[in-house]
């Protein structure tokens, strides 16, 4: 479970000299095994056994399991042609590193796994654009700096509980870059390139960092990120243009805001962000045929897990906004409560625009198929987590049954309408889709990225040697 993805990476490396058809089959088998492994981690998140210094919490297992499954799915679904095997091999290394990062009980172990993941991600990103590479390297260096500073300040080797306020800001900024909250940077800087397979893992590291080490709720920070999400949605709608590198901020910002605002929404909000980022990665290869499925995921409509997360957070925010307490806190909760319906309506608008965007465009059958799989998964995940989790905030079991029946009746009505009237109504397109380029950076960018990675590696090596000298285990 913990090292399996590295084994898959070795298998893919070993297949590099085999003929193309054989290598293609090997990549496909490895991809399905990786997807199954990720889903298994999600399904058994409450009872994962510990192994040496690795012990995965339920929340982290759910987030990482879904991210790993999405990454292997991207390895199979994106139009990578001859790049597929090496992208898969690096994804395998990064997947194991992410699992170790999320499960490590010792800071040194976490740093070592983070370093392995950084190297894999840097190798992929270096062939996919300087801006994405530099921003990912900067976020990794920031994370390393925060974790090393925590060890030095506490003089303890165990993984931190909740970080000090002083370290909170750099951690949140690093997590935001890695997650994709900056337009056309981080994972959004490598869209349309082979390194896009790493995007769910890059995002997962950012989400796990917040879930593990940040004391929540943080309503002010959540309100800020929610405002960013609404601003991005408004920008896309008013310009009548959807650029995946910009619109991709929407699902991450929405999920991130819900994560910061509600501890209870941690898993559904994180899954919503990961699934949203994955569907954005598929966008360039499924521009026309994937419009509807992408629209439904990005809109955050019921009964997807995105809506579950919104429901949980809205309820919590409302209760806190109407309770007595610190005036600043109450004001922040009022702002969150007021912004959530606006964000929800913005999601509907983004969904409509995404569904009515101009075709034709990139078409890769596997990518289109995966957008539908992701839509189905985001619906099933809400039900699979049980009525007390996602649907608990919406009325429990009866709510799940009602939404299930409503969807079934809706599907039946659609089928009847399609067969009885044979109607194909094609409304005029509402907007265009164009994948913009990340910022063009000079030769200094790779040099700086390498310097940051070397700096992070040096800090990791220093703290590891110091820990071994003191016998941290």
């Amino acid at each position, binding site marked *: 479970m913990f090292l399996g993805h590295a084994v898959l990476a070795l298998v893919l490396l070993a297949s590099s000299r085999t003929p193309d058809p054989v290598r293609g089959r090997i990549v496909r088998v490895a991809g399905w095994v990786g997807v199954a492994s990720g889903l298994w981690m999600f399904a058994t998140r409450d009872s994962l056994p510990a192994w040496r210094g690795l012990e995965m919490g339920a929340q982290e297992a759910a987030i990482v399991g879904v991210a790993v499954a999405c990454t292997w799915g991207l390895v199979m679904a994106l139009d990578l042609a001859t790049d597929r095997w090496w992208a898969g091999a690096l994804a395998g290394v990064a997947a194991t590193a992410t699992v170790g990062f999320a499960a490590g009980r010792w800071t040194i172990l976490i740093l070592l796994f983070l370093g392995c993941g950084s190297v894999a991600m840097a190798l992929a990103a270096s062939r996919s654009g300087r801006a994405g590479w530099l921003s990912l390297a900067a976020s990794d260096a920031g994370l390393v700096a925060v974790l090393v500073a925590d060890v030095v300040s506490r003089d303890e080797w165990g993984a931190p509980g909740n970080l000090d306020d002083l370290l909170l800001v750099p951690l949140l900024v690093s997590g935001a870059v890695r997650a994709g909250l900056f337009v056309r940077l981080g994972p959004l800087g490598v869209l349309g390139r082979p390194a896009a397979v790493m995007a769910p893992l890059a995002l997962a590291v950012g989400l796990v960092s917040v879930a593990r080490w940040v004391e929540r709720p943080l309503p002010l920070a959540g309100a800020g990120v929610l405002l960013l999400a609404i601003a991005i949605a408004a920008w896309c*709608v008013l310009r009548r243009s959807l650029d995946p590198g910009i619109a991709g901020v929407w699902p991450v910002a929405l999920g991130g805001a819900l994560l910061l605002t509600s501890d209870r929404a941690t898993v559904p909000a994180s899954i919503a962000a990961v699934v949203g980022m994955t569907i954005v990665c598929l966008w360039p290869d499924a521009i026309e045929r994937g419009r*509807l499925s992408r*629209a439904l995921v990005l*809109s955050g*409509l*019921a*009964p997807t897990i995105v*809506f579950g997360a*919104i*429901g949980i957070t*809205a*309820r919590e925010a*409302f209760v806190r*906004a*109407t309770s007595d307490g610190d005036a600043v806190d109450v004001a922040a909760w*009022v702002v969150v*409560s*007021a912004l959530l*319906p*606006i964000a*929800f*309506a*913005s999601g*509907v*608008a983004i*969904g*409509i*625009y995404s*569904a*009515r965007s101009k075709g034709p465009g990139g078409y890769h059958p596997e990518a289109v198929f995966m957008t539908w799989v992701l839509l189905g998964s985001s619906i099933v995940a809400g039900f699979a987590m049980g009525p007390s989790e996602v649907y608990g*905030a*919406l*009325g*429990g079991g*009866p*709510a799940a049954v*009602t*939404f299930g*029946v*409503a*969807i079934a*009746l*809706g*599907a039946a*009505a*659609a*089928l009847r*309408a*399609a067969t009885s*009237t044979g*109607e*194909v*109504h*094609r*409304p*005029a*397109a*509402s907007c265009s889709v164009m994948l913009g380029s990340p910022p063009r950076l000079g030769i200094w960018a790779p040099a700086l990225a390498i310097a940051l990675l070397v700096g992070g590696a040096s800090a990791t090596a220093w703290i590891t040697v110091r820990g071994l000298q003191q016998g941290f285990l």
Partner: protein
Amino acid sequence: MSSSAAVAARVAGAIGALGYLVGVVDGPVIGALAGLALVAFGRGLLAPAGAELLGPACFGVLAGAAGSAALRWGTLDLPEIQGAQGVLGPTVVVEPVSVAVMSGAALVASTLALGIWIGEPEQGRSLTRWWWVELAAGALLLATLFCGPPPSDLGQAGIWLGAAAAVGALAAVIGPPAAKLRLGMRYSIVGLCAAVVAAAAVASGTLS
């Protein structure tokens, strides 16, 4: 594909919303709004170019109205909002007077938004009569929030359903003439409705 998806979203949304509004689910108003959001999405898929965002905007007004009523009673749960009205009276008449007046204004504004939304001409040949169900869901939501005691006896049920019928009838009357207005004018009216509802929410949150 768009036609089928629009049908699926509209049917599923209206049924989901009605599930909450008629009491099949004892849950928060968020659930009913989720259903109406699906309706907005479905209608937006087939709306004429330029009018596709009218639905989400009107939905936003209804969501704001729901927030205003929820703030008035300090709860998001529909049964609790109805229960409070059963004891104290409809939201639009319970003191303080300023909050009651603003709640009434929110009800009128959201009814207007509902009328503009539902009055948008149907596109395609499917679901030409389904707007009745969507109108019923929207009207029931507003009646439940602003003048809906729990239907514990015939009299209370009559008040609730009568209020819903009145809201629905008003929206149905507003709809067709509103659809003849220029698009910019309709967006402006919805924006004005949103401002009224936001003011009502502020009044409910601070003065209740």
